[in-house]
């Protein structure tokens, strides 16, 4: 049974392809900012209850229920301000959805920030944009200026008494600053290194104040959910995985790109109906990384039945992550890809925790050697052993994310290593 494509009305990011006007005029023409006044005059608790019910889950990778997260925020006590921080440090290899939101539909985020700040009792919001997204941040900056001019930001928005200021901050090129507490450290002007938790940001976040950090897509999806209601939202996707989602499809497909589609769409449909199919045909498929480089890959066999939502992919021992689908056909040297991914993680480890700092480099070097067949079969077990010694031993989830793809490769494609090693042994004999 095919999942019907989203109509333009049902799409949250109506200008994701950049064909229309990105500015406030274009956004308002597409229905943006309609009903904002009503949202700002409604009690935040009502909004948060609705979000909880909507089962909106964080689009940044972890899939944590947004309504629940927002309910952790204490009510402002007059002593310390509350903050909403938008995580636009999109760095997960394969992921480029936030980029298109920032440059083609930035007002969806601005509106989301306004509503988010209202819901969380925050008067100040920060948007931390990845340093490489310079052009995109300029667009966003213009959009924020437009919103100020239109009276949609600043003091007493639309006469509702709600005050929201948004500050834009550019990162300096560290992947780890996408981890929410490292992002806060970086925002505070320190070295971007994840913080020890507890305390959690909801209690002790930016500058020691209660803070909520959400992904661009999550924040932008909040106003439409609140405006159109949960019935509309819940018609898409399965139980606990409702809504629409942007999938970034890249790699060996005929039409790579960002596609907004209903959640729980099957992977095969996504590849064939949206991304123009695998280069060389579905039979030419070797493996797919379903949610950004941190998620273990799916074998071609798994791809037949995989359902693209948080729970569906967990059944295959992987995750939806950022929904960045990286397709590899049989022309791809899979081991080289995975070695390159390991090199990325070696480069991006912040260096704080011992296992990650020392171990990720070790894993990369083993991958590099073993992927060329230089090594022994025992070293494959050792590689797995090292990944296990790193996983779950660190402050943040970076190391886990760096180890899962290696473990996934060993699980599905150990035979490739073995072939290379045996071949190499023969040569040297």
């Amino acid at each position, binding site marked *: 049974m095919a999942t019907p494509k989203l109509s333009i009305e049902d799409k949250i990011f109506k200008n994701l392809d950049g064909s229309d006007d990105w500015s406030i005029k274009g956004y308002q023409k597409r229905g943006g900012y309609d009903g904002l006044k009503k949202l700002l005059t409604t009690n935040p608790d009502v909004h948060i209850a609705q979000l909880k019910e909507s089962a909106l889950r964080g689009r940044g990778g972890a899939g944590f229920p947004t309504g629940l997260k927002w309910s952790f925020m204490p009510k402002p006590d007059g002593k310390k301000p509350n903050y909403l921080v938008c995580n636009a440090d999109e760095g997960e290899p394969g992921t480029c959805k936030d980029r298109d939101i920032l440059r083609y539909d930035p007002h969806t985020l601005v509106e989301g920030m306004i509503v988010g700040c209202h819901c969380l009792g925050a008067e100040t919001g920060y948007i931390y944009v990845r340093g490489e997204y310079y052009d995109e941040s300029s667009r966003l900056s213009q959009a924020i200026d437009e919103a100020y001019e239109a009276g949609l930001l600043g003091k007493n928005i639309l006469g509702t008494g709600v005050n929201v200021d948004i500050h834009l901050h550019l990162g300096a090129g560290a992947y*780890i600053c996408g981890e929410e507490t490292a992002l806060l450290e970086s925002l505070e002007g320190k070295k971007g290194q994840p913080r020890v938790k507890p305390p959690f940001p909801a209690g002790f976040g930016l500058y020691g104040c209660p803070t909520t950090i959400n992904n661009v897509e999550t924040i932008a999806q909040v106003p439409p959910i609140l405006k159109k209601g949960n019935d509309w939202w819940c018609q898409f996707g399965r139980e606990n995985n409702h809504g629409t989602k942007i999938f970034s499809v890249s790699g060996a497909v005929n039409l790579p790109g960002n596609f907004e589609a209903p959640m729980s769409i099957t992977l095969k449909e996504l590849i064939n109906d949206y991304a123009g199919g695998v280069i060389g045909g579905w039979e030419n498929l070797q493996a797919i990384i379903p949610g950004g480089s941190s998620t273990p890959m799916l074998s071609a066999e798994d791809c037949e039945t995989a359902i693209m939502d948080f729970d569906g992919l967990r059944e295959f021992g992987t995750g939806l992550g950022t929904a960045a689908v990286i397709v590899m056909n049989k022309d791809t040297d899979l081991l080289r890809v995975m070695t390159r991914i390991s090199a990325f993680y070696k*480069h991006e480890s*912040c*260096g704080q925790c*011992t*296992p990650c700092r*020392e171990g990720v480099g070790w894993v990369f070097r083993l991958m590099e050697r073993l992927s060329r067949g230089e090594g022994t079969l025992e070293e494959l077990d050792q590689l797995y052993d090292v990944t296990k*010694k*790193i996983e779950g*031993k660190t402050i943040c989830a970076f190391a886990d994310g760096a180890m899962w793809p290696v473990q996934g490769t060993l699980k599905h494609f150990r035979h490739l290593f073995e072939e290379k090693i045996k071949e190499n042994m023969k040569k040297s004999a």
Partner: protein
Amino acid sequence: MSEIKTITLTIDGQQTTVPAGSSIMDAAKSLDIEIPHFCFHKRLSVAGNCRMCLVQVEGGPPKPTASCCFPAGDGMVVHTQSDMVKDARKGVMEFLLINHPLDCPICDQAGECDLQDISVSYGSDQSHFAEQKRAVEDKDIGPKIKTVMTRCIHCTRCIRFATEVAGVEEMGATFRGENMSVGTYVESALQSELAGNMIDLCPVGALTSKPYAFTGRNWELIKTPSVDIMDAVGSNIEVHSRAGKVMRIIPRENDEVNEEWISDTARFSYDGLYENRITSPLLKNKGKFRAIGWKKAVETLLPKLDNKKTIAGLVGDLHAVEDLFAFNAFMKTTLGSDHVDARMNGFALDGSYRPSYLFNTTIEGVDSADAVVIIGSNPRLEAPIINARIRKNVVNRQMPVYMVGAEVDLTYKYKHLGDKPENIAELYDGKSAISKELAKFEKPLIILGADTLGRSDGLGIYKEAEKLADKIGALSSNWTGLNVLHNKASAVAALDLGVYPEDKGMDLGKTLKALEKGTVDTLILYGDSTHVDAEKLKGAKFTVYIGSHRDAYAEVADLVLPVTPYTEKDAWWVNTEGRLQEAKASVAPLMNAKEDWKVFRHLSGELGKPLPFNSLEELRAHVLKKCPNYKYNNCIAPAEKWVSIAGADKLLKKSFVETVTNFYKSNEILKASKVMTECAESSLNKNKAMRKAG
């Protein structure tokens, strides 16, 4: 009072109850369960990055938890010996060692290295690592600390110490991941008076003592408890010696005094104990010193000590309690001369009322103060340990600090309220905004620089400070907040023991005038002082210098007698709080030097008026008779009811100036030390460079 909540949890099957907010590691400590760790240090913030302290918490996520930073919870069940924990520790240990050079045989840290110890207990006996090891370039961070950065395990203790305790944000980490490198970014000498503590904090051999490098192995050293005398804090130290020579000095823990820090002058000045020392009596002949025997020296000296002559004695900065007592008694009873003064800075008060010249609040008391007013002092240079204590409270509790005096960098923010004595009145006049602000504190602490009280208007300044203390409630029944901060080790003891004219003798000023006029027959210079220029001490018919180092004062003398510095005698020391602490001799007196009190006892015998003690015990009994407060060994005397000092209220228009201008050269041992000379030069160069850069 709010009730302190407690938490009960089970660790390895044993139950323990700890205060709410304790970490799992704290709780384990209460049960004497050892949890290995590298980055955690009780006096620094928690980093949680070494991952060595992982433990298993039942019911939590299926992965180990860092016990140093995870709060203990009620009913929690923790395992520190499960397979999961053992595997995790083995894993972390292996990761730490893959890039560590394992050059223990040539590493100065070997034998006192956390990495070695923990590796033996918790590590594996082999590594699986077959790749190239990382190598990191060493950094030159000044004459105090030697770096071998390849050994660094990135625990960030040094960074946290520099940032949090020392207050110089000069250490940091650059680059990411396995390229992360600890250092100063721009390679330059650390400008901290406490930098040496990073050596103790470094759990591996990355930061080691530069002067001590390759000179000894720690297991060969004899460790003697002692007290530092480079300032008047009385930091507890341990002197390490080998074959009768001091090899290095490290701190001892004492929460009431120095916690576990010592200043760099205390740590690195020991080479000065062997430079420029007087090793036998010297007699000046045609302007040149010639070594002579003790017998001849005494024979030369005795006629000059005839009690018909005018004999004056000036006492330097670094004398122990017993020696001061013996010298005072020698001058006053044996020689019958009251012309003796130890207040080389011209200190305005005498010893008649003890709280008038002590750091009454105590050093630990800084932790309970709610504001600090500093008058005419630079605690960063005069007592770095106390300054670190103030800084701790400024950082942790936002304690406000006010300053009347030279505007200097104290490593924390303060409100500067002028630099003249007249500015003190504005703090308590009840009209100015600042006086209203000060009046609202409950436990204000006033610090008066001892050298400032050595100005000619010292008494007036003291009276002003007393008025201020009274007006802002620093002299209440449960809080004595008026403190004098001394910077010389023997200052308090000299006042306690009455080493100043007690009858009608000449004090320092009068002695100097008499020297100018040429009316002094014999001048006894007991020890060196930076306060009085040696040029002013010429003019006596005969000058004898009794001291350990051949410094400026020795050069003006006709006869020089060698005595011992602090490491070569059992002695009592009294710090600026009035706290008596005992130091043990770590090495024997160098060559022909003799213990000071024995010299005075011997001379008194030769003069036919022997001092009434023949052993250190007998001498100490006499000291205790004179100063009953000293029986509270290693603790300060009970507080007395405040008595105001009578005196003039004269105040000069002159600004307060910095009195310790060269931190690394402020006494004869420091002046003799080559390491201290290097430190002084490097800080001078840095200052110059900074001035140039604008």
